[in-house]
């Protein structure tokens, strides 16, 4: 008689059976030393099951198929000189920011989930964390492979990993992940699994990849959506972890709430880079940051937090502030990079008239009032040969490490400053959210590696801008400054048979 094919539930039960055995040579607490100090109480690990019930054989089969498809596209893209078909060479700066700022986080996530999977006693989270760890390594590799094609033609790409560890604005995403990986395993899962993957990842990947699709970048769309197809599993792990922790013990609620508040705020600040990319850097625009925020935070987050109310979990603290900031954050961030273009590893530009009109239409409450006049003034100064550069090193927020350029809730004409005195030193913050995070764990954040402080302390190659750029391995005159007049512009115009723009002469 033929053996009946096993169903999904049965297959998953066979995969996981006995993997959570009680150790006898060593004490369980010695084998799993990190899962108690955070104060999380677990009574029954078996209650955590992966609802996808993905088994290893299926995992390898699907991942192999995804890889085959992706590399076929990458090959075709290279053979057909796909770089010629992007909407405009300004678009490449999106990839530079992504590769230097985000891809190294994929590698951090790979290591973080490998560690976390090892240190959880339950079978469900261990298998899911192992798969996620492998996924993240795949994402890092495929992103580096895909974007390497652009490295043959454009500047600012070759030293991405070195830059990630050193360049001032890249300390924002880097410190975000360092913070998560320096936390206990449960906080890591809430930080990355729940807050980042479930609540915020759609804001990073969906508009970014849709932007790539709309701007003719076939290779990036393909790696992006290939990575994103793993992301649904990661989101599932994220939502399972939060439900599991809240169901296991009522004492877990205040701890989890504090982490949700913290990591929502940390993630929101990091995603400001994506906001700027969507509103300013994509030559052909998919949707505004504000629209993406409405779909993926207000609407999707609303449904999620309504669901989690039954456990007593509340919408993250300062979500209202973040929603108000959605009207401002992209404009304020791009203004920072415009002023510091000499120290950025990608090109900047002032928006042209058509682009300004689009921003006016998408931001009727704020753009014409606060931001359009500034762009018009800077464009005029540039025309007159007085292009504005800010040569002072900015003060940084001790928590998010972003220059203190954000404005007060309710008053976009006033820069927001907060401070805390701790252990005889004064620490500065851009917001109440960042100050709260420091105040809760000052011992941790007092140690932050703040790029501006490090430059002043003489740890970044020397005292002058060229010394520091050299230490960044930033090729001054090619990697940095405005797009107009750059070697990127020159090669693009030569492909397209266009005369160089006047400013390039």
């Amino acid at each position: 008689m033929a053996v009946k094919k096993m169903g999904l539930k049965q297959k998953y039960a066979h995969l996981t059976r006995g993997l959570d055995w009680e150790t006898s040579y060593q004490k369980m607490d010695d084998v799993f030393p990190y899962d108690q100090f955070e104060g999380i109480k677990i009574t029954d690990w078996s209650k955590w099951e992966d609802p996808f019930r993905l088994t290893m054989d299926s995992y390898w089969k699907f991942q192999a198929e995804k890889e085959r498809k992706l590399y076929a596209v990458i090959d075709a893209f290279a053979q057909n000189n796909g770089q010629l078909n992007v909407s405009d060479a300004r678009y490449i700066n999106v990839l530079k920011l992504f590769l230097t700022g985000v891809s190294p986080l994929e590698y951090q996530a790979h290591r973080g989930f490998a560690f976390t999977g090892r240190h959880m006693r339950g079978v469900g989270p261990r298998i899911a964390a192992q798969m996620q760890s492998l996924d993240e390594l795949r994402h890092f590799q495929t992103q580096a492979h895909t974007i390497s094609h652009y490295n043959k033609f454009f500047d600012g790409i070759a030293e991405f990993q070195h830059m990630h560890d050193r360049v001032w604005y890249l300390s924002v995403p880097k410190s975000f992940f360092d913070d998560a990986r320096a936390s206990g395993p449960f906080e890591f899962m809430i930080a990355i699994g729940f807050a980042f993957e479930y609540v915020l990842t759609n804001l990073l990947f969906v508009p970014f990849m849709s932007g790539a699709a709309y701007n003719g970048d076939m290779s990036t769309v393909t790696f992006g959506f290939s990575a994103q197809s793993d992301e649904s599993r990661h989101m599932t792990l994220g939502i399972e972890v939060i439900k599991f922790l809240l169901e296991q013990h009522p004492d877990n609620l205040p701890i989890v709430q504090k982490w949700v508040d913290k990591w929502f705020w940390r993630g929101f600040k990091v995603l400001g880079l994506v906001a700027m990319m969507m509103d300013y850097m994509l030559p052909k625009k998919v949707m505004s940051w504000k629209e993406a925020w409405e779909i993926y935070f207000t609407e999707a987050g609303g449904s999620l937090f309504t669901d989690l109310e039954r456990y007593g979990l509340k919408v993250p603290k300062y979500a209202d502030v973040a929603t108000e900031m959605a009207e401002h954050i992209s404009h304020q961030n791009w203004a920072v990079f415009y002023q510091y273009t000499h120290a950025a590893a990608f090109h900047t530009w002032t928006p042209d008239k058509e682009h300004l009109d689009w921003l006016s239409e998408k931001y009727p409450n704020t753009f014409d009032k606060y931001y359009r006049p500034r762009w018009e003034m800077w464009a005029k100064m540039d025309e007159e040969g007085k292009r504005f550069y800010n040569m002072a090193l900015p003060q940084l927020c001790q928590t998010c490490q972003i220059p203190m350029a954000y404005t007060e809730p309710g008053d976009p004409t006033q820069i927001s400053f907060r401070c805390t005195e701790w252990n005889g030193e004064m620490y500065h913050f851009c917001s109440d959210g960042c100050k709260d995070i420091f105040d809760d764990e000052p011992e941790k954040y007092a140690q932050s590696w703040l790029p501006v402080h490090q430059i002043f302390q003489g740890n970044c190659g020397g005292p002058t801008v060229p010394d520091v750029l050299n230490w960044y391995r930033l090729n001054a005159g090619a990697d940095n400054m405005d797009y107009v007049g750059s070697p990127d512009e020159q090669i693009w115009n030569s492909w397209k048979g266009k005369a160089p723009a006047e400013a390039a002469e």
Partner: protein
Amino acid sequence: MAQIASITLYQNDEARPVMEAILQDNPTARVLNMPGAVKIDVDDELIINRATVEEKLGSEWDCQQIHMVLISMAGNLDEDDDRITLSWKH
């Protein structure tokens, strides 16, 4: 206000039968087309039936093949051999 159960799929031939099956089995479904991706929202609960996808596709389909076309989703997931459910109902 209804909670929104949602799925985002590739905008390609492999995902199309899945999208058609969702639209048939979830009469209140709303579609948002984006470059390269399609987002489908349903109030409270979104269901994908294997049988409907197979009918659209004209051949066998395993629920786990969803992983090949999936970009994102919202709602509590449950998957077995015959259906995938994303739901906010309890």
